[in-house]
């Protein structure tokens, strides 16, 4: 079995998808945020790969096609955004101020925590772009002289955490407006948070997609300012 796994291009991906489906079923059945299909799938897949001694490259030979669809899917996010155009026009001020507040808070939180925890300048700038989409975040980290591999890992962890905790945090801070929920998820947890926003509703999804682009661009500009603080 383990030997077959090590050479199969389909086994790993199939396990990921089965784990995802089981996670989605558990979530429907029990309704806990803890049963996050994405998290369950990632954990189960890693456990199986490590258990069968399969390396990531072998797994990725099949799994990369899932990632290949990410660009067209992100392009498609413009569709719900267009469908909610009226809503967007009516709430332009809330969108801009909300996302700007989130981006500044993200940079400021990283700055304050890095100071408190005594991080080096390199580790600090590595974490600055942690809330934005991977491809933009990588560029920012590289530009500022951070460790790009760590930035990528932290961005993904941030996204998955946002996906898991998003609904709970909205309840905690009494964020009830669908527009605000979407903006918060997209600004704090980029595309992986947007996947959650899409599950919550069309308005949440559209606002979250918009936040990915706006927060990404704002972070490119503002992180170079923040990099000089420490």
């Amino acid at each position, binding site marked *: 079995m383990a030997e077959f796994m090590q050479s199969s291009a389909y086994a790993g991906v199939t396990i990921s998808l089965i784990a995802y489906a089981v996670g989605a079923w558990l979530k429907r059945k029990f309704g806990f945020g803890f049963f996050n299909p994405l998290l369950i*799938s990632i954990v189960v897949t890693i456990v199986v790969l490590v258990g069968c001694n399969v390396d990531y490259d072998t797994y990725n030979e099949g799994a990369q096609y899932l990632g290949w669809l990410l*660009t067209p899917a992100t392009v498609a996010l413009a*569709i719900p955004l267009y469908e909610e155009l009226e809503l967007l026009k009516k709430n332009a001020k809330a969108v801009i101020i909300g996302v700007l507040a989130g981006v500044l808070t993200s940079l400021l939180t990283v700055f304050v925590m890095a100071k408190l925890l005594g991080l080096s300048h390199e580790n600090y700038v590595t974490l600055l772009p942690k809330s934005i989409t991977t491809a933009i975040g990588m560029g920012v980290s590289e530009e500022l002289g951070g460790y790009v591999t760590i930035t*990528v890992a932290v961005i993904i962890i941030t996204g998955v955490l946002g996906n898991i905790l998003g609904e709970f945090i909205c309840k905690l801070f009494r964020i009830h407006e669908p*527009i*605000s929920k979407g903006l918060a998820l997209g600004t704090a947890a980029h595309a992986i948070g947007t996947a959650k926003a899409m599950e919550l509703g069309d308005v949440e999804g559209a606002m979250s997609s918009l936040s990915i682009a706006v927060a990404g661009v704002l972070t490119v500009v503002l992180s170079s300012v923040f990099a000089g603080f420490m």
Partner: protein
Amino acid sequence: MKYLRQFLIILGVSLIGEILKAVLPLPIPASIYGMVLMFILLLTGALKLDQVRETGKFLIEIMPVMFIPAGVGLMTSWNVLEPVIIPVSIITVITIFTVMAATGISSQIIIRRGKKENK
């Protein structure tokens, strides 16, 4: 044919996004260029919703699954993460809360104020 044509259009926009990324010297990914371009095409009416809607919705619906490989890829970054795992974990968890609160609460105040004025 409908789905194939829709997929082709979405891929075509992705391709233009990729070309823009190659030409422009900004740290912006192809997917974001593509998203903005798709939005402009819909806005100007160059593309109709019917030409992309179903396939687009399908892609969005299965989007969470596309993050699985990147998530599983964390198993290879363990050795770089390990030395900084404690500060990084603390910062990551706290930022999720602060950012969502800042964006959610500030935008909600503006939206609700707007609603009141309209009444």
